[in-house]
């Protein structure tokens, strides 16, 4: 069981990494007019067959060999549905996968969003070979982190794991998030 939506996001993103994605797009959008908190993870990884899609939300299905249950997708799905929200999983073999979870913002059963900065920071810093496009929005305010733009500035020889760069990524995420949500805990 995850205690924060941001931990689900970190977990589901690991599936994209295992699917050998080269670009992972993560969107977190809170919209008070519709009372929705929408989370989308989209990748260009290996995708899933129809049979795999049908089984992905079954906790007793996994493609890994180190254990025979897979709880990541079921956790994510049920956490959204529990709030009266929705969950969809679209995938095409060879093209990629898109997972969408919609939470009802005001539902008492909704987990807190949690530490998105930590989630995105650890994804970006520890997966330098993968591009991330992260968008965070609250109503009409938003910010984006695009690792391709960072790499354009840094050049190929500077890794995100360098302490200075890692610290900068964290500051970028922290400061821009606060500007978007005014420090309100979602």
């Amino acid at each position: 069981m995850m205690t924060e939506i941001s931990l689900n996001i970190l977990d589901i993103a690991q599936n994209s990494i295992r699917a050998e994605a080269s670009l992972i797009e993560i969107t977190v959008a809170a919209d008070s007019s519709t009372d929705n908190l929408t989370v989308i993870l989209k990748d260009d990884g290996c995708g899933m067959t129809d049979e795999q899609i049908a089984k992905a939300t079954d906790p007793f299905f996994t493609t890994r060999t180190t254990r025979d249950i897979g709880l990541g997708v079921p956790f994510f799905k049920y956490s959204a549905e529990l709030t009266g929200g929705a969950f969809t999983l679209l995938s095409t073999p060879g093209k990629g996968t898109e997972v969408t979870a919609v939470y009802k913002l005001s539902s008492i059963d909704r987990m807190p969003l949690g530490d998105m900065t930590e989630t995105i920071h650890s994804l970006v810093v520890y997966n330098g070979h993968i591009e991330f496009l992260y968008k965070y929005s609250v109503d009409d305010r938003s910010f984006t982190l695009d690792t391709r733009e960072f790499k354009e500035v840094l050049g190929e020889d500077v890794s995100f794991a360098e302490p200075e760069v890692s610290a900068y990524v964290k500051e970028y995420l922290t400061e821009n998030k606060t500007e978007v949500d005014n420090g309100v805990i979602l």
Partner: protein
Amino acid sequence: MKSLEELKALREKMKSQVEIREDDANALRVVVGMATCGIAAGARPVLTAFSNGVQERGLRGVSVVQTGCIGLCQYEPIVEIHAAGGEKTTYVQVTADMVDEIIAQHIVNGKPVNKYTIEAQRIG
């Protein structure tokens, strides 16, 4: 909004340092399990604690990396330390509070913290 202008300045400042860093062979690897089991058990703060601890102490030749599930979910969060010589130490049910001790004793001084290893913690 924080812009990428500051990153450009940082890049300029770093140019001279990068070459030196690349000479550091990765002598030691800290591997943190970050699959569903690890994350649910609290691996994210452990990963952050290792990464911050290594940076704060300015340790060279130490890389902190992630891995998936190694099949011992009941022991998560699991951290493996692979030393330069190839020997592996597996720490189990690691919390962020234990990380400083592991860094000081094991990574800096080369003595594994036996009380936190899988051999000491066998569950059932």
